């Protein structure tokens, strides 16, 4: 068997035997989508929902690259297993290639829950071709983070790498914030469109136009008032609970 595949196989095995680490890293972007996008109106708008999912895939790729390579390599270097591996009759190539393969596998694995939540919880849509193109461009977009992770992993101790990567993910939080700003922007453009269509004139829409669709008051998404067909009376229920 090709040695790079052997390395990839055992690295994947090593990681997958700690399911909590795999699951938590795979679930984090999906949970972000669930908490910050799904409950809001724009989750029902195909364009903004698709954009949100796409942006979170980039965030997911970034964090998995920084974590697998940044912290992963720094931790491995601190074990005596690492110098032992360097005494085996294999150069650095199979190890690095195996590491890349492992990183790619866990990166793609991390996208699955996110794409599932996107597909079933929002109005996001995509054609199979565009999905493949998107994954392809994600692999390319992963490269800077891959190199960043390698730089962190090989230059810092595990503790320092942990801090560096969490700070990196902190800037990733800005990505999520940017996500929301992006939605506001999309919504504003739509409002402009609608305004134009209604008024039939060019130029800026009237100022009082809502900038954020959430405030438009239409009950669309989940968690927005009572679900359809609900008999009503949350209040009574809670009061009776209090009395009992």
């Amino acid at each position, binding site marked *: 068997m090709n040695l790079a595949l052997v390395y990839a196989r055992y690295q994947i095995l*090593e990681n997958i035997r700690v399911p909590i680490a795999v699951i938590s890293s795979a679930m984090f972007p999906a949970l972000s989508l669930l908490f910050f996008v799904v409950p809001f109106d724009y989750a029902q708008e195909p364009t903004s929902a698709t954009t949100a999912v796409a942006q979170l895939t980039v965030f997911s790729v970034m964090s998995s690259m920084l974590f697998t390579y940044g912290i992963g390599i720094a931790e491995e270097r601190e*074990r005596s297993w690492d110098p032992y591996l360097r005494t085996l009759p294999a150069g650095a190539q199979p190890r690095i290639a195996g590491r890349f393969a492992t990183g790619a596998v866990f990166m793609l694995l991390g996208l699955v829950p996110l794409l599932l939540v996107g597909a079933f919880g929002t109005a996001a849509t995509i054609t199979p071709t565009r999905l493949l193109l998107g994954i392809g461009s994600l692999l390319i977009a992963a490269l800077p983070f891959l190199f960043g992770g390698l730089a962190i992993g090989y230059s810092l101790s595990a503790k320092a790498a942990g801090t560096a990567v969490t700070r990196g993910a902190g800037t990733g939080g800005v990505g999520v914030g940017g996500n929301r700003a992006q939605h506001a922007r999309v919504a504003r453009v739509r409002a402009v469109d609608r305004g134009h269509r209604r008024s039939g004139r060019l130029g800026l829409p009237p100022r009082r136009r809502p900038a954020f669709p959430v405030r438009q008051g239409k009950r669309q998404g989940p968690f927005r008032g009572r679900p359809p067909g609900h008999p009503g009376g949350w209040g009574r229920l809670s009061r009776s609970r209090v009395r009992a």
Partner: protein
Amino acid sequence: MTEILARALGASRRYGDVVALDNVDLDVPAGSMIGLLGPNGAGKSTLLNLLVGLRRPTSGSVELFGGPPLDASRRQGLGMTPQQTGLPPTLRVNEVVDFVAAHYPDPMPVDEVLAQFGLSDKARKQTGALSGGQQRRLAVALAFVGRPRLVVLDEPTTGLDVGARRTLWDAIRTFHADGGTVLLTSHYLEEIEALAERVVVLGGGKVLADGSVAEIRGQLARSTVSFRADSPDISKLNALPGAVAYRRDGERHVLQAADADELVRQLVISGMEFHDLEVRAASLEEAFLALTTTEKTGATR
């Protein structure tokens, strides 16, 4: 002429200001079993790291199978064991052995390796679930997986109980009897004495002595005479012709001498009362202590 499997020529290694290894020459001929001895920080691990290609010498050169050890193909005939146990905790025992075996063209079958090191019933266990001694045995077993010509063992039996240590010694002896070459370090002089044919004593990054176990012992050329006495005259003991050193070890009085027979004769002539007389040759430990402490005092002088 026998083939030289590993060689250091005037190899020095510095870590910043610290000279870990100072102009060391060492040949490891095929079929030999060499023990590297030295106190902590003597440079043993540094020398091994240079020989197996983990570090480059600051000056001088090292060779492995006639070429630079940094070249991966040179390490085809090398088997090494990690110093501390640092096995990947989530991999199973047979997986670790399989993984290492994948690096070699003609590895030993996994079952055979595990049987030889008494780990057959642990094959499906994750290494993190093994006891310290079992992990250590697995780590040493890994050195033999690829049927290497040269095995480098850095403190192979540290932390093992007596039984496990004997098992390992047997495995190492079998390997050597089949023509394998062994380079090992140890903190246990007993281990070096039991296994090594040749002893290289390192101290302060230099080779202090290099020879067979008997030669190293002989370098000290001393025997120890000890006895009990109720009221010995210490000044008289020191004045005995032939006595080079005196110390007290609990109730026993210990004299060192180049010629033990002569010392005993003088002791009897002196008319001093003594009992429980014991005469023995200096152990490797005494020779080792003498060598390394002279080095230290020599350096401070």
